Each structure stands twice: as structure tokens, then as C-alpha cells.
């Protein structure tokens, strides 16, 4: 298990490099390429003074490398500008929108992984059978669906036509007020449980079902396909035949040996799956009006709220990088063969 201090330090160093790279790219995109960045920063319909102030804030009269220096300093001190739409500091906006997104992403991703791995195995163990074909078909269709469309259709069918599950918002505001619900962690499921508020808990849960399932569809399909193909490969490796012919219990063979061989590359790919889940979550947030970062960024895009757009992009990129770092470390820990 070569997860030595050196490995961790090296990965952290890479992370820092990547963070800087991300910041430089976004800097180029938003300050260097646009002709009049102060207009973007101040927002449309901004009065002349606001534009002048923007010019100063962005230090546009100074040379590029100085601008970059200020940019980096601003970033690290949490000064990400002010969203002209919400009139709040962008950093704050993003932090308050984060729990909503996390709740959705974590649950969606959990569904994808917890259902995906067994299904992939199930399919591989029945290679060539009809059951295998059914699972594969579901997975390939799921990997072809545009998320925003699925979100719309599910909302229409279950939320409006069948009225089975509410679609939109995280919790019924009236219900929350009446039952005295207060948000502590930002995770409504957790908060309602902590406060023993079962009414809000059920409501929040019901409202999570559709978005979470929608979010989970793509990574679920990806996981099934990947696990299945890996398992098929491993099942044909020499050691599987050797152990089996000499008498090992088939269940032990599959659920201990094959699983362990399969799980390593799966874990390595979890980072990317998480990325897809994240982006999918953003589109789902837009459709279901779920007040997370995706919704915030989406609104910002529509209203040309550049500080907010920039801040969201940078935040998501960094968050994603951090997740990938964790995934890489876990992968190295699990698989003795991994080297940097």
C-alpha cells in the first residue's frame, strides 16, 4: 500500500498546480479574452459609476500580470465579487447553495454506486443470457438519455399528471413555517431528523425522490456498463479458473476474489462518475428549481451575471479536483499495484 507521505504530498502539490491552472484559465477566459471585461463584471444596465468602479476593482489599467496577481489574491481571500442579481457576495451565495446540491449529488451518486455495482455483477455472471441482455439494454439506454429531458418528462408525468410525487423546491415553505422547521446544517433531511420533525422529513424526502433518481440515471448506467465489462474480464482470468478447479467455494470466489479485482478500477473511475453526477445535478436543479449551485449558476448564466458565473465555475472545478484527489488516495490504498 504505497500511500506514503510522499505520495500524498506529491498529489497535493499536483492539486495546487491544477488549482492555479484552473484559475489562470478562468482568468484568461474572463479578463483577457473579452474586450470590455468591466462591462461584464458590472452587469447589463449598469450605470456609468458602476462601470467605473468595476474598472478599478478589476485593476484593468494595470498590466496583465499585475491583474493576475490581484485576481489570485482576491480569490484566496474569498473576495469573489458581488452578484449583481442577488446583490450578495458570490462566495457567500455559493456556500449557502452548496448543501442543497450536496444533498442531491450524494444521494444520486450513492444510488448509482450501490445499485450499479451489484447489477453489473449480476449481468456479468449471466453472460449471454436474457437477464444479461435486459440489464445491458437498460444501461445503454440510460447512458443515452439527455438528463434535462428526463428531468422534464419525469416532472411532467409524476409531478403534474399523476401527482404522485411533488416536483420542485426542497420543502414546502408553508409546512416548514407551520411546524417550526429551522435549517441548521443545510441538509434538510438531517435537520428535520435532528429536530424530530417527521412531517418536514417526509416532505423533503418526497421532494428528493424525483431529482435524485434523475441525477442517478447516467452514473448508474455508466457504473453498470463498467462493472459488467470488468467482471467479465476478471471471470476469465487464470486465477479464477485455478482456484475454482481446485475446489474453492464459488461464492467466496466471486464475492471476495473477483469483486476485489473488479473494485479497484471501479474506484479509480468513481471520480469521473462523480463529475457526471455533479453536472447532471446542475441541470436537474434548473428543471426542478432546486436551490443549489447549479440553479444559482444557471440563473447567473441567463442574466449575464458574470461574477456569479465565474465564481461557480471555479468553485465546482476545485471541488471536483478535491474529490478526485480523495478518490486517487483511496484507490492507491486499496490496490497494492498502484504507482504514481
Amino acid at each position, binding site marked *: 500500500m504505497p500511500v506514503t507521505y510522499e505520495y500524498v504530498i506529491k498529489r497535493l502539490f499536483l492539486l495546487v498546480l491544477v488549482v492555479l491552472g484552473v484559475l489562470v484559465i478562468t482568468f484568461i477566459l474572463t479578463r483577457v479574452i473579452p474586450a470590455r471585461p468591466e462591462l461584464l463584471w458590472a452587469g447589463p444596465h449598469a450605470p456609468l459609476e458602476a462601470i467605473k468602479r468595476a474598472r478599478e476593482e478589476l485593476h484593468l489599467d494595470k498590466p496583465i500580470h499585475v491583474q493576475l496577481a490581484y485576481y489570485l489574491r482576491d480569490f484566496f481571500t474569498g473576495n469573489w465579487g458581488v452578484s449583481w442579481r442577488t446583490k450578495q457576495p458570490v462566495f457567500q451565495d455559493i456556500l449557502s447553495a452548496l448543501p442543497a446540491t450536496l444533498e442531491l449529488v450524494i444521494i444520486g451518486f450513492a444510488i448509482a454506486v450501490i445499485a450499479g455495482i451489484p447489477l453489473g455483477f449480476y449481468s456479468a455472471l449471466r453472460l449471454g443470457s436474457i437477464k444479461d441482455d435486459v440489464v445491458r439494454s437498460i444501461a445503454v439506454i440510460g447512458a443515452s438519455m439527455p438528463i434535462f429531458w428526463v428531468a422534464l418528462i419525469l416532472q411532467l408525468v409524476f409531478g403534474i399528471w399523476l401527482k404522485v410525487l411533488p416536483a420542485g423546491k426542497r420543502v414546502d415553505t408553508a409546512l416548514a413555517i407551520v411546524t417550526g422547521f429551522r435549517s441548521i446544517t443545510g441538509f434538510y433531511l438531517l435537520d428535520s431528523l435532528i429536530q424530530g420533525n417527521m412531517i418536514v422529513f417526509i416532505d423533503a424526502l418526497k421532494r428528493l425522490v424525483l431529482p435524485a433518481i434523475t441525477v442517478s440515471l447516467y452514473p448508474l448506467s455508466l457504473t453498470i456498463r463498467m462493472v459488467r465489462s470488468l467482471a467479465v474480464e476478471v471471470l476469465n482470468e*487464470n*486465477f479464477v479458473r485455478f482456484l475454482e*478447479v481446485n475446489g474453492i467455494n464459488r461464492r467466496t470466489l466471486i464475492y471476495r476474489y473477483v469483486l476485489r479485482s473488479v473494485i479497484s478500477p471501479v474506484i479509480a473511475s468513481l471520480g469521473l462518475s462523480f463529475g457526471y453526477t455533479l453536472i447532471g445535478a446542475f441541470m436537474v436543479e434548473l428543471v426542478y428549481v432546486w436551490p443549489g449551485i447549479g440553479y444559482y449558476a444557471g440563473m447567473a448564466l441567463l442574466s449575464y451575471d458574470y461574477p456569479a458565473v465565474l465564481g461557480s465555475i471555479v468553485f465546482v472545478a476545485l471541488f471536483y479536483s478535491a474529490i478526485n484527489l480523495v478518490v486517487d488516495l483511496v484507490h492507491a490504498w486499496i490496490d497494492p499495484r498502484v504507482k504514481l
Partner: protein
Amino acid sequence: MSGTTIISIRGLVVNYYTFGGVIKALRDVDLDINHGESICIVGESGSGKSTLAQTIAMILPQNAVVERGSIIYDSVDILRSSSLDVLARVRRDIGMVFQDPATSFSPLFPIKQQFVDVLSEVLKVTPEEALRISREALKNARLIEVERVLNSYPHELSGGMLQRASIALALAKKPKVLIADEPTTNLDVTTQAEILDLIKVLKREYGLTLIMITHNFGVAAHVCDRVVVMYAGMIFEDGPTRQVLDNPLHPYTRGLLMAIPRMGRSLTPIPGFPPDPREVFEGCPFYGRCNSARGECSTQKPPRVVLGERTVHCHLYWGSQWKS
């Protein structure tokens, strides 16, 4: 060689279904394996020798189909029985080692774990007992650093040690039969000799019936008292090693022996190439490469001719079984 027959194979036909076509791996194989003998199945790649071994050991891959035939072991046709007892008996009584020791164990688990997992199931004993048996088996396989081997991962051990370990695993349950599929092909020459000697010794010590698969007549001569020559899924010749090597009956066997590089003799390979395993043959699959071929060789399957202790599948000998 007489003696009690423990495995009796009749009319075995095995196909592999692939996207490239149907591979006829075994085309009508008859074979009797007797208790206590060392039998070598010799042939080129694609001759079906590994398939034969895998069918006996009931470890065929998923796309293989036993189309016809029977294998009688212990009064049961193991191919026709879907009973779990039969499978358990085969797992208990037959041990098998493969060609590449490095990939015979899972790279993610220590050797100890793999031994215990196999033995506790096949012998129905506790892990502690399984471990004890493992140690004994590794010692019998002439491994000196038993504890080190047990605690190591496969990539930490040499090829020779791993092959000894896999032989130990196959024999730890004290099976009746050991099938060794090209056990030395991936090893260096010195280690090859060691492992072959080990197998001979262990065969004696454990009282095994040995089935060895090889493409090398030298190995056959060294280890086995009986040799079976296979080609394109058929058995061409079968008999005591000394007799077959000194006086090969089948033209193919003769060609093989002539093709072995030897000092002072020019290299005489068999002309042509082995046939496409997907091909179906009306007559003998060796027709076209055989310099003793006759008219009926292309249209009629070669008959099985028994000549004393030897058997040959060839038109050339049809009729001679009644002489002497």
C-alpha cells in the same frame, strides 16, 4: 497398460462458440485412463489437448459446449449429471495446475488466504486446520521457506516457487488425479527440470494418477509411461512412451519426432500448417500434410486400430490389427 480404468471417455465432441465461428476443439475422442499411470497428452497448439483436460476437470469456459460423448468417472457420467454432488466429487478428486504460475493466484491476496479459502471448502475443515494442511503440502512440494511463501503476495515470489505452491495447492486435498497443463512451459530450463522431477516424486508419494499436457516430447519421455498424440481435436496415436518414441506408427507422430532439432541432422518440419479449428473434415484432418496419404484419407474418418498395447487412428493400419 492394464489396470483399473478410472476415467473412461467415449465419443467426446466439444465445441467453442465464438464470434469468429464455431471452433471444433474435440472431434470424437475416445480414451481410457487407468489408475496409477502417468499419461502425457502431446500435441501442437490447437490440437485440443487443453480442452480435453478442462473437460475432464469440469472447468470449461462459458462458451464451450459438450455436444456429445461421455466421461465416466466413478461409475457416473460426469457430463450428463447436473448433480452438485458429482461436481463436488470431481473437485475433491481432481487437482489441476496450469501453465503460468504467476497468474494462477490472485495478485490481491496473500498465498495463505488463497490456500485456506480453497482447502476449507474442498475438505470441509476449519481455517486453522486448512492452514495446517497447507503447511504440510508446501513442505511436501519441497518448499523450504514455507512461512515466507504463505505470507507473500504472488508478485513477491519467483516462477518456480509459485509453481511449487500451485502444485502444493492442487495436491493438498490429496486428490486421486493430478492434471498438469503445460506446467513447465513458462519456466526457465533449470526450473523446468526441477518441477518435472517434483511432479514425478509427488506422483509416487501421493499415489496419483497423472495426466500431463505438453507439446514437448522430451517432457513426455522424462515423466510419462504412456503418451497420447493429438491433432486437430482427434487422438492419432496412443501407447507406452518408449514404444511410441522409438517406433511411431502414425505419420504425424513420425513427422513430429523428425521435426525435433537435433545435431547432425537437417531440420525437417512437417510441410503445411495446422488446419483452421473451425473447419469440418470429411476424412482425416492430417490429409494434405501427410506423405503417406491414401485415397480414403480425404473422405473417410480414420478408424481406430488397436495393436496390442498401442492404438492408432489411421487408414494405413486398418487391417493390420488382425495380423498377429
